[in-house]
């Protein structure tokens, strides 16, 4: 029964702690913004970094205490792992979309979904390639570098490199986010990183 399994799974990944923290960070940024700024539109750099801020507590939930041990359970791990990663991205997107009701506009729906999906994928890639402990480094560093150059537009490669701060209709940015999501979900679903940072195949 999935209902019996899900609470145990979420608890083993410390989601009951991470999700409220993620919610609280977005709520804080939203409240501070609507209290101090005279317009609902959040600056693009701040909007991009808020996605990272909301996602950051969820990244460590991508691994339990001993994934290598878990994989011995006769369960369909790849599907569950893929759903976990997509769920983390969706959770962040819903939080930021919901912030609009509280008076802070973190960008268009397309932009929010693109950034949440791309960063969730990047976190999954991070877990696959660097291990859980360092998985947060790539999303945070890439987002921070983009926040330093808040100039959208330019040639395709530039839009692709600075994909978080592009407007919602930028094709290179959307392609980058889609590639990151796909690679992240596939990588994270199929390869489990052990607590020592080594990786083993799930099947």
């Amino acid at each position, binding site marked *: 029964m999935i209902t019996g399994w899900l609470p145990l799974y979420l608890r083993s990944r*410390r989601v009951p*702690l*991470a999700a409220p*923290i993620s919610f609280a*960070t977005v709520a804080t*940024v939203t409240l*501070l*913004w609507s209290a*101090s*700024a005279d317009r609902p539109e*959040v*600056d693009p*750099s*701040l909007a991009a*970094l*808020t996605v*990272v*801020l909301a*996602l*950051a*507590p969820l*990244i*460590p939930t991508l691994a339990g205490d001993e994934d290598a041990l878990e994989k011995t359970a006769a369960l369909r791990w790849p599907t569950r792992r893929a759903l976990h990663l997509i769920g983390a991205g969706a959770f962040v997107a819903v939080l930021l979309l919901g912030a609009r009701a509280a008076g802070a506009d973190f960008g268009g729906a397309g932009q929010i979904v693109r950034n949440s999906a791309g960063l969730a994928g990047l976190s999954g890639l991070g877990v696959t390639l660097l291990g*859980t*402990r360092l998985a*947060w*480094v790539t999303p*945070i*560093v890439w*987002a*921070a*570098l983009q*926040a*330093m150059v808040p100039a959208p537009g330019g040639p395709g490669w530039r839009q692709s490199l600075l994909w978080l701060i592009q407007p919602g209709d930028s094709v290179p940015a959307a392609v980058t986010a889609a590639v990151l999501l796909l690679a992240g979900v596939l990588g994270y679903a199929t390869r489990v990183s052990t607590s020592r940072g080594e990786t083993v195949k799930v099947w």
Partner: protein
Amino acid sequence: MIHAVRTELRRSNAVALAVLLFATGGLMIAAMAQTWSRQWLTFSYVQASGLFFLVPLALAGGAMLGRRERSTGADELMGSTGRPRWQKVAPPAAALAVAVTAMHLLTLGIGAAVIGATGGFLSAGGTLPALADVIVLIGAVWLGLAAGRAWSSALLPPALAALALVAQVGVESSDEGSRLRNLTLMLQPPGFVWESFNAQALLGRLALGVGLLVGGLLLGFGASWLPRVAGVVALTAGMVLAVVITPLGLGARYQVDTAAQRLVCADGTPQVCVTAVHAYELPAVTPAVRQALTMLAKLPGAPARAVEWRADAASTFDDAQFRGRAPKQEPGTVAFRVEPDDRMLGPGDLFRLESVSPTGLTANIVNGAGTTMNGCRLGDPVALGAAGAWLMGVDVLPLTDNQFSYDETVRADIAATVKSLRELPGPEQVRRVAALRDAANACRTDDLRGILTGDPTA
């Protein structure tokens, strides 16, 4: 103690953190290569602005070690030994400090080596921002270490890093005049390559660093509530001091570095001098400038030497800042700019390093018969361009000066003005262009076109 620190360097994540900071900081510095190419003071600005993300990463790196000490029970093991608490905490803290210091100084050293090897200007003053930033970085890792020991959750390092980033960008969004903006480590760029950080800016940075350092130290080492409260006080005091001391506004953190502006002159006559920061351009600049001086000598009372234009204050990115109604130029000298493009605000394609274009430089100097950098307010670009084109013997000047951007109408006007000027008798042509030059050099720039056409509009 040294032995213990060496063991900690191998046991802890200090080296991995240093590699991470070096790689990410280096990536940003390399991506901005065009901005700081051969410019030491600009390099020190670029390296300092990297603290925007290096400090959050350092906080997270410290927190990773702190939570590991706690969750593996290493601190309990150490706690069972009969030594004072600071002796138990000092080795990992020292290992982190050694690693980040080495990383930051190595980056600085590589920058100095690259700039020195390519013939750029180097000075001891340019190392000061990096030295102050070492304190900030050590403070950040120690604060992270204390945080990790206090709450050993796996969520802490990424949450801390993201929070530090969002807080910095958040204060950037505050009002234009709000001093809270001083809490971000992202810096406004200097306007010119001879600008270095001024004392207040460095002191503000140092205050923040000392606040983080003492706060992290007391929070991490303190075994009772008293030192911990003192730690919070120190941290707050450092931030408040940084907010109060650091000057606010575009260009407010910079000053003109006199050593960087010292003149370096080429051998031979007529004399051509550039600032020390552009000394490496002297071989390329000298022939172009001398050619411009030859062209200017078609007029009576022509200048005998050319000197690079130097700002007397830090730039506030205001076009009118260095232009007024009183001439600032020494008689007999023409001023020119070596780098007409703005390094900071130009379009700046990645990795494309532009050198000075000799024809463009000659055109920039003869524009307005050598008056465009004399400190006066600029006059009609058509009249200035026509006088320059007449001197250079072309229809429209091939300018590279970003103060002038010609559209089709202006180009047509210039060509027409030059054409009608050339139809006059020779001595009259010389007289009119010389009159334009003298008027512009006396800051009478209101009706320059009338002088050329002999038909005053005013």
